[in-house]
């Protein structure tokens, strides 16, 4: 692949750093992808192609791994990612009402990114903080005992 843009070159640099960090070992593929995903917010095509050539692993295999795990994104996400827990304990504690209110306030449906590029909304399985359900995560921050009324204040904290 020809590397054309400055952005692509940056992606390749990030991929290189991640591969070096794990000594270019094939079995460290998941930690490598995790590092790129953390640094860039997602795993761009240019980074994936570069990792593939450095590890001598087919791109198809890389994509199959990257798309399998929920924490990896293969498309660019919004500036903030909201993960809403839709497992039974949160559902029983009133999660459905909160989730409906959240979709309304963000004007997006689960799995999509808002037009202004600010929010990505996804559902997630149990986050392991069930005693305070319903629960959602905004980036790395966890919010529990949610009610629909609290949502505007929480969302206003993020630029």
């Amino acid at each position, binding site marked *: 692949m020809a590397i054309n843009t400055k952005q692509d070159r940056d992606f390749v640099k990030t991929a290189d750093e991640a591969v070096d960090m794990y000594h270019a070992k*094939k*079995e*460290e*593929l*998941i*930690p490598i*992808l*995790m590092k790129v995903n953390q640094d860039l917010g997602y795993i761009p095509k240019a980074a994936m192609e570069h990792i593939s050539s450095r590890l001598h692993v087919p791109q198809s295999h890389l994509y*199959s*791994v990257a798309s*399998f*795990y*929920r*924490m*990896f994104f293969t498309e660019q996400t919004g500036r903030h990612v909201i993960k809403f827990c*839709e*497992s*039974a*304990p949160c*559902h*029983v*504690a009133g999660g459905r009402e909160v989730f409906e209110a959240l979709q309304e306030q963000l004007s997006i449906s689960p*799995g999509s990114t808002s037009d202004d590029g600010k929010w990505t909304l996804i*559902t*997630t*399985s*149990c*986050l*392991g*903080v*069930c*005693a*305070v*359900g319903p629960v959602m995560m905004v980036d*790395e921050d966890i919010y529990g005992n949610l009610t629909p009324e609290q949502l505007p204040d929480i969302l206003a904290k993020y630029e």
Partner: protein
Amino acid sequence: MKTKRSMVLVSNDPASQKKGASKVFDQFTKELASFNLTDEISLSMVSDIDREDIAPFVIVYPEAVIYGPVTPDDVHHLVEEHLYKGRIAADLKAPTKELTGHISWIADRKGTMPAEQRIVLERAGEIDPDSIEEYVIHDGYTALGKALTEMTPQQVIDELKDSNLRGRGGAGFPTGTKWGFVATAKGDKKYVICNADESEPGTFKDRLILEGDPHSILEAMAIAAYAVGANEGYIYVRGEYNLAQTRLMNAIQQAKELGFLGENIFGTGFSFDLHIHAGAGAYICGEETALIESIEGKRGEPRPRPPYPTTNGLWDKPTLVNNVETLANVAPIIRNGASWFKSFGNASSAGTKVYTILGDVNVTGLIEVPMGITLREVITIYAKGMKNGRKLKLAQTGGSSGSIIPAELQDVPMDYDSFAKAGVAMGSGALLICSEDTCVVDLAKVLLNFFRFESCGKCNPCRIGNQRAYQILTKISEGLGSPKDLDDLENISKWLYEMSNCGLGQTAGSPLKDIIHHFKDEVVAHINDKECPAGVCAMSGTMPAMN
């Protein structure tokens, strides 16, 4: 949690109801409040006891005294004498006769109120998890020292076998036996893996152990490695558990510096190296062969079994995979001996179990109690009763793939054998308590939605079955169900169990099966009468868009 000191059970069978049991119950509520005892005494109703001769009657536990027949006018006297002054109200005592039915456990445990018993959570919250010194002061690494210097690997395995410890990840396989399989497996290279990919909805016991007492897992893994002949191990931690990962990394570093991990531990020539592998978000990786695939850098798709990981595991080498809570029991067993461990719990299941209590109860949270306590005790004593005085409808044990227990079965002791007899899976220790406001169709829909997303997609029964069951349940919840749907759901849950490759698919249908078995009328009301008795389902008459 602060526990209650007494438990009052008012009979609620049809004979008792006819003779005014609910008035007796209401009077108890009033009298307990007027004596200011509401915080100390739990009150609940019990059915399925064959004592029509004394209906309605009252059982006071832990003394296991039965009073009956009781009228509302007797209640003041009973509360004042027995619960306030602490002496048995002899004039109201019922003629002695053995208790039968679900509640018969009460007689066996007369005089003991269930108390929290901490083995695996002994240090969590008590010590600084980032300080190996504090762990060492609290007997830390003494079990490893004992195993390495005073015991042969076979003696360690025998001690584990003798303790009757069973896997706490859900399946309940005897731990010592599994260690024995790996120890006798052929191969010079072996691995020990700690399964810390806790993703079962409603379960967070492992997170608290890892965050509160990370060294206990390191110590147990080193003991396990010595016993089975491994010198390398992995802790597979759920990707979302950031704090647990940080604390484990710190703990490994500290243990290496002090010589509890690494080369030539305690100068015995035994070496053990430990790595952390973070998950990347996939429920299926809690399945041990999927977990192994994931460590190898692949999609987390389960392998066909046999061969089992005990002979062909990580990199095709013999591998021991144990759950966090299981491992947390190992050092205490080696330190105190198998008979000490067996003094907790009951004959069928030794030791304690950590439960996470969730749902429509007054107090949610985590308890560690001896094996064999009942759901009723958990709800009335630890969880301080149902929220807003609502009635218990069902509880789900063990997370999304666990069993649905209707209220009638709340007196079955929670241990492996009693649960197996009642057709209930112990699972991971999550107890989701649902009141009468819960709709079983809606609950089933949420559970199947979970599985259709978490199915890895490798085998057809699971990939298609969960999706199809979810579609049918959605249809039913919108008032578009037809009688054939019930048969289809029953078949899907059966086929999931019979034909799926791994534990995820095999158990995905079990809550559905339980719901149809115990709450068929409610499902049928949705289908035939287009009515949701709990008033939860939309019943809109239109099918929503579905992905």
